């Protein structure tokens, strides 16, 4: 049995008097690929922040590679892309390459230095996201889609075992989005990278992720895309028409028994 990468049992999280997450339980082992979906305010980002130890849960247990997140130190095993693309200053004076290099700091001991020996990893991540030609441009002078690709390269550069991505494709055009999901699939299949990705695009993530987790303060659904499409509970939740639209988009793989 594979070791658990993430384990969550009976997790709850309250902010002031509001319940944000209730009775969340699931676990991920190496190579799992989970798409977290749900409406705005459903607690998706909060769940990620609890897993990463930014927020303390109100109840329940969370472990990251077997440790409590607040005690976790092996950050080289984790790659993270936060939600807010525009959280940084648009006039930030660093180049795309400098930003991607920051993703390697989790692998460094004090004093953390980026040197010639890191060039190959940085160039590989730049190339993977098709941003080598703009590596010396200032991040603030890039388009939203290019900035997002820089940040994705930063999350990938350390070759993490667990990749956590919060709405990574919002600023990407359809072609770049397709390539990005193909890249993730390749990382997942070839290197057994465990992936947690938050997205609103159930149809697309359903084609790639091994599991869908539909969240609305509590887990509404957790399973394969195929079982999602065939679930009568989901039919009740979404309505037959919406479920049909989600599951039979022109670019979505139809639900079949082998995805169950």
């Amino acid at each position, binding site marked *: 049995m594979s070791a658990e990468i993430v384990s969550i049992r009976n997790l709850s999280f309250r902010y002031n008097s509001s319940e944000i997450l209730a009775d969340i339980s699931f676990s991920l082992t190496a190579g799992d690929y989970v798409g977290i979906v749900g409406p705005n305010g459903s607690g998706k980002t909060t769940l990620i922040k609890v897993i990463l130890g930014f927020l303390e849960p109100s109840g329940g247990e969370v472990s990251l590679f077997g440790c409590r997140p607040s005690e976790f130190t092996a950050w080289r095993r984790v790659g993270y892309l*936060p939600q807010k693309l525009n959280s*940084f200053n648009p006039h930030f*004076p660093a180049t795309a390459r400098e930003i991607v290099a920051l993703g390697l700091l989790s692998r460094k001991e004090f004093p953390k230095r980026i040197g010639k020996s890191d060039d190959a990893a940085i160039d590989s991540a730049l190339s993977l996201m098709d941003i080598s030609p703009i590596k010396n441009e200032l991040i603030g002078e890039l388009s939203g889609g290019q900035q997002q690709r820089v940040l994705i390269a930063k999350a990938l550069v350390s070759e993490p075992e667990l990749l956590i991505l919060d709405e990574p494709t919002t600023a990407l055009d359809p072609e770049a989005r397709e390539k990005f999901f193909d890249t993730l699939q390749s990382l997942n299949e070839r290197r057994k990278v465990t992936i947690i990705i938050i997205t609103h695009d159930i149809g697309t993530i359903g084609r790639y992720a091994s599991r869908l987790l539909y969240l609305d303060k509590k887990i509404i659904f957790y399973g394969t895309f195929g079982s999602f499409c065939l679930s009568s509970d989901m039919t009740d939740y979404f309505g037959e028409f919406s479920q049909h639209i989600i599951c039979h988009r022109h670019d979505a793989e139809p639900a079949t028994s082998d995805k169950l």
Partner: protein
Amino acid sequence: MEILDLFTHGFIQRALIAGSFIAVLCSTLGVFLVLRRLSLIGDGLAHVTFGSVAVGLFLRTYPFYAAVPIVMLSALGILKLVEKARLYGDAAIGIVSSLGIAGGILIASIAGGFNVDLFSFLFGNILAISTTEVTISIALSIILVIVILFFYQELLSITFDEESAKVSGIRTEWINKILVLLTALTVVLAMKLVGIMLISALLILPPVTALQLARGFRATIVISSLAGITSVILGIVTSFIANLPTGATIVVINFIFFLLSFTYRRWK
């Protein structure tokens, strides 16, 4: 010849040496503060410096010695308010800043005035800087350079995105403390250079000048430092020759640098 004669005076030499080092401190720290939208922390801590100078005068001790611990504690207080009271940085700075001014006025009132004019600290006097203060500014600059050499990547990472920096295993709370404590010490030192009222200009103007020109993070720090040093040297010399207040002259020269760099960026 007259200008060269200027440099033979001991007080001018001390002013130029201390001023240049303080300029490096302010310009370098300012890059991190400006990019993290904490520009006004200098202003806030300067107001606390006003209060702590009053404490020093009240206790009949050299104001600098009272200001250092009080301003450092206030800097940590701003961090705590942001973390624990869930305040934005500007609100936390505003609270500490107004408390500093209020404290200073209250103490001055209770003391019934001081022999030394409290308000002379508002505008600084770099030409009266002591050898001890020159030594402190050099020592602090060396500490800053060491900190930046050892923590450059951590500082860059936190400045870019604190949340991601945490996932890179960076002890962000410690780096933040180091940054604000260095800022606190620098503000107390800079009080002599430009005065309490104008300190934030030294922390803000050289970095924003550099941001117009630099193409990379290291380049921003270097250009900011060069702009800071040049403005201080030019400011001291110009003010002495033209019989102008030194602090205000330094700030105006800094603003001219910003205008020039802004114009260059717009028209290149």
